[in-house]
């Protein structure tokens, strides 16, 4: 289980390959990658604030919970903070399991929890204004299925 919180970009290809290489018992590997979208147009940077110390602990707790609930061989969480440009990768998770159902469900669980239970806050900065991204009811609701 590897948890990485960093400002620097990460390399999806290298991380996915490294994760897969470490998994010798699995038949299924799922990765999810989150990318900065310029939804409204004019986005200059997506600033991501976090709570150093708690962030790592919260991510490790969520990943440990996933390892316990599903038959996973391994799990990976990488999440960036700081100022990101549109199209930059924000974060990724990866799960490895004997069967595809476990790998998919655990990856979705990680994403749902990470969205609403890990201490990150996004702020969208355009040339006109800077605005904190509001939490979505749908994201909170997504937790109910687990």
């Amino acid at each position: 289980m590897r948890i990485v919180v960093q400002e620097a970009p990460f390399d999806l290809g290298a991380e996915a390959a490294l994760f897969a290489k470490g998994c010798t018992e699995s038949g299924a590997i799922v990765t999810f990658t989150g990318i900065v979208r310029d939804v409204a147009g004019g986005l200059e940077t997506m600033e991501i604030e976090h709570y150093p110390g708690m962030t790592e602990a919260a991510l490790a707790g969520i990943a440990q919970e996933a390892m316990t609930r599903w038959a996973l061989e391994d799990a990976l969480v990488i999440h960036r903070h700081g100022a990101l440009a549109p199209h930059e990768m924000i974060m990724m998770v990866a799960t490895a399991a004997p069967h595809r159902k476990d790998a998919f469900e655990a990856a979705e669980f990680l994403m749902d929890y990470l969205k609403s239970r890990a201490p990150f806050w996004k702020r969208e900065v355009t040339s006109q204004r800077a605005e904190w991204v509001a939490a979505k009811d749908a994201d909170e609701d997504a937790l109910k299925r687990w």
Partner: protein
Amino acid sequence: MDVLYFAWVRERIGLPRETVHSEAATVMELVKELRAREDRYAAAFADVSALRVAVDQQLTEFDASLDGVREVAFFPPMTGG
């Protein structure tokens, strides 16, 4: 104890962290003490349903005890991922 603020709570109060001397027994009692300090605190803590709290880096509720606690953090609902 250390009190931390993140995101718009930090902006509204105007600082990321401060040391607070308080006899408050629960998070909610601490919130009431902070609200009474200045308008910017009153504004930040006007609606606690819009806030989340972590005690010693664990998410918790506003009725949580502050007994032996070293660090309390207030912030809006998280928006990671």
